[in-house]
């Protein structure tokens, strides 16, 4: 069977995984990775096969569930955005120590230029850190194929495999030719069971094995068809992942440059050395951080032969474009019309009718009476409360940080110390911090603005829906100080009163303004 489909990079990965015979996808939403899991949730073959595809509470629980599935011999896919790797890191790094039984592919979607993210971190560092192979497809077709290849690789070498993509791969469509699906693995247990018990005695042995495997991984990178080396002129280009496309966009087929395309790491050391000897200069074109360039230059190479983001030939920050790569290759852009000065920015904003709006409006009203207040917020649609007309919040750092930072600030003497967090973020990693606050009797007022969904990323199920208050009570918040309200303009006075009372209460209080996200509400109405 061959079929041509127009797919997003994310969807190509999703279909590749289904066709590779996965038994589960474990993920927490995050732009630009969300569509992978969403596609599997709707895919007929995945449904027929009963592939597990419900959203996880956070990226760490996702990584661990995948490892459990691998333990019993099945293939599992893990998906997250780049910052999710920070949350999953403990499980991810140690999954290389245990090794895998069924194949594990972890997809990390990086977001250079920070289209929808709080930083530009490059997940390839995690792959190197954990000593696992990294795959970085350059096209949607490669993305589709490399997922299956990744599962085979993972099982052959007994390690998880990291697939690293960036926004333009995740969210760009192209025609993909698909092939016959593989069968699902049967249940089987690991042959070497002590690897899975990382007591020091086992871990020390296992660490040596992982390190010893690195040479094999380098050899695989030299022979894989996904890395290609066209040895030609004295000018060279190393193009990683989608960086390859921008290079090819700018040079003609008769171009004399030596080109090394990299879609699999660790770096193919032998080829890179050969290229270094052969070329007078090498431009490294990689999206994200200068991962390869830094490895090649280190701090000792002062020849000036290696160029890229560190040398200033490419911008140090922001994503690659055909234009900045073109400039580094010496081609002139064809720009005719200058940026139009009449155009002004159009920043994103909370939707009209959104419950978060009512929350901020009334919160501002109450806090006007407390000039020393600070509001520690979190990540989600409600972060837009930082912008006019609200300007209600003072921080947004990482998921879950609102509650813990409010606690720390209260410990340090702040009053009132207020946290604002969404329902999905609360269950992702806010509830553990709530336990800290309860245990130390912190004087904080926590607002869990519950829109019954994970709205920021497009309305995925939220793990704690219907149980937010129960979770707070279970963690130990005094029932008298868990208050639920409905954020609507007509309830402003009542909510104002509730917030005021809870600020004045010396201890942990939780207010849950609850009203469904108007986007999911609209979508439901459309369906009916």
């Amino acid at each position: 069977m061959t079929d041509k489909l127009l797919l997003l990079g994310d969807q190509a990965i999703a279909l590749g995984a289904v066709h590779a015979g996965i038994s589960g996808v474990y993920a927490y939403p995050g732009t630009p990775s969300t569509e992978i899991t969403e596609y599997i949730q709707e895919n007929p073959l995945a449904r027929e096969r009963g592939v597990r595809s419900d959203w996880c509470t956070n990226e760490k629980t996702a990584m661990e569930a995948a490892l459990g599935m691998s333990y019993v011999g099945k293939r599992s896919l893990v998906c997250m955005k780049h910052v999710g790797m920070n949350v999953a890191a403990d499980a991810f790094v140690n999954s290389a120590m245990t090794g895998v039984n069924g194949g594990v592919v972890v997809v990390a979607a990086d977001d250079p230029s920070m289209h929808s993210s709080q930083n530009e971190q490059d997940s390839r560092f995690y792959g190197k850190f954990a000593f696992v192979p990294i795959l970085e497809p350059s096209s949607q077709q490669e993305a589709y194929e490399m997922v299956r290849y990744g599962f085979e690789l993972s099982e052959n070498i007994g390690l998880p495999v990291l697939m690293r993509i960036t926004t333009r791969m995740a969210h760009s469509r192209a025609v993909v030719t698909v092939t016959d699906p593989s069968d699902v693995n049967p249940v089987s247990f690991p042959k070497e069971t002590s690897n899975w018990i990382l007591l020091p005695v086992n871990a020390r042995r296992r660490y040596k094995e992982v390190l010893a495997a690195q040479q094999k991984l380098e050899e695989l990178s030299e022979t894989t068809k996904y890395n290609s080396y066209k040895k030609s002129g004295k000018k060279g280009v190393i193009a990683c992942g989608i960086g390859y496309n921008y290079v090819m966009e700018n040079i003609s087929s008769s171009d004399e440059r030596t080109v090394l395309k990299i879609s699999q790491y660790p770096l193919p050391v032998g080829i890179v050395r050969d290229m270094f000897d052969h070329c007078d200069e090498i431009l490294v074109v990689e999206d994200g951080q200068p991962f390869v360039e830094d490895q090649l230059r280190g701090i000792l190479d002062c020849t000036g032969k290696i160029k890229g983001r560190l040398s200033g030939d490419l911008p140090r920050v922001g994503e690659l474009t055909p234009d900045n790569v073109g400039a580094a290759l010496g081609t002139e852009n064809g720009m005719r019309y200058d940026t139009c000065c009449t155009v002004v920015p159009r920043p994103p904003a909370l939707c009209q009718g959104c419950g978060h709006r009512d929350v901020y409006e009334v919160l501002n009203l109450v806090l006007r009476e407390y000039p020393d207040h600070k509001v520690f917020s979190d990540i989600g649609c409600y972060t837009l409360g930082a912008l006019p007309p609200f300007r209600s919040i003072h921080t947004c750092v990482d998921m879950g940080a609102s509650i813990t930072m409010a606690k720390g600030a209260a410990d340090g003497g702040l009053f009132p110390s207020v946290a604002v967090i969404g329902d999905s973020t609360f269950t992702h990693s806010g509830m553990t911090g709530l336990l800290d606050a309860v245990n130390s009797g912190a004087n904080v007022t926590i607002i869990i603005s519950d829109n019954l969904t994970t709205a920021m990323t497009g309305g995925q199920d939220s793990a704690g829906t219907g149980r937010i208050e129960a979770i707070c009570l279970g963690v130990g918040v005094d029932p008298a100080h868990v208050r639920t309200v409905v954020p609507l303009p007509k309830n402003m006075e009542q909510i104002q009163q509730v917030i005021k009372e809870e600020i004045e209460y010396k201890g942990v209080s939780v207010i849950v303004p609850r009203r469904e996200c108007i986007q999911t509400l609209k979508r439901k109405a459309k369906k009916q």
Partner: protein
Amino acid sequence: MKKDIILAGVGGQGILSIAAIIGQAALNQNLHIKQAEVHGMSQRGGDVQSNLRICSEPIHSDLISLGRADAIISLEPMEALRYIPYLSPEGWIVVNSVPYINIPNYPEIERLDAEFAKMPHVISFDVDAIAREHGGVRTVNMVLLGAASLILDIEDTKLEEAIGDIFGRKGDKVVEMNVNAFRAGREAGKKQMKG
């Protein structure tokens, strides 16, 4: 054949259905396609754009280079102007003249009009008004696509076929409404073609 197209608008206006139909038409003709789009943060009432590239030869970059776009198709006038550094000297702007004002410092319409007057190839008209006569605001995209079909080098019958492919699931009535809006947009566009 090669067409590099920038689709622009404000989050929620639905530029992606235009991309889907042009993409489907290109797929039906076995052309190569790349279409980069924006999801996430910027959708919340912010500016959104999509780079759509179709070509008879394989396409490398997902993004269009500065000065190379053959067309900017925009549901909103200021959003069309945001991308003019990408427009090729002979490129077309196909634009809805109705502003979407959700920011306090939106420029005066006259200043936008003056910018369009400087450009050699423009199709600009009140797309909303035509849409209201043909199924309502939901068909705004199809009206604009109809006007764009005048300069896309894809036969209009192929685009209509693609509308059928994309909306087919929703029933014949919906397909018919969208095809009618497409045709009305094409007629309206003919009258407004400048260049």
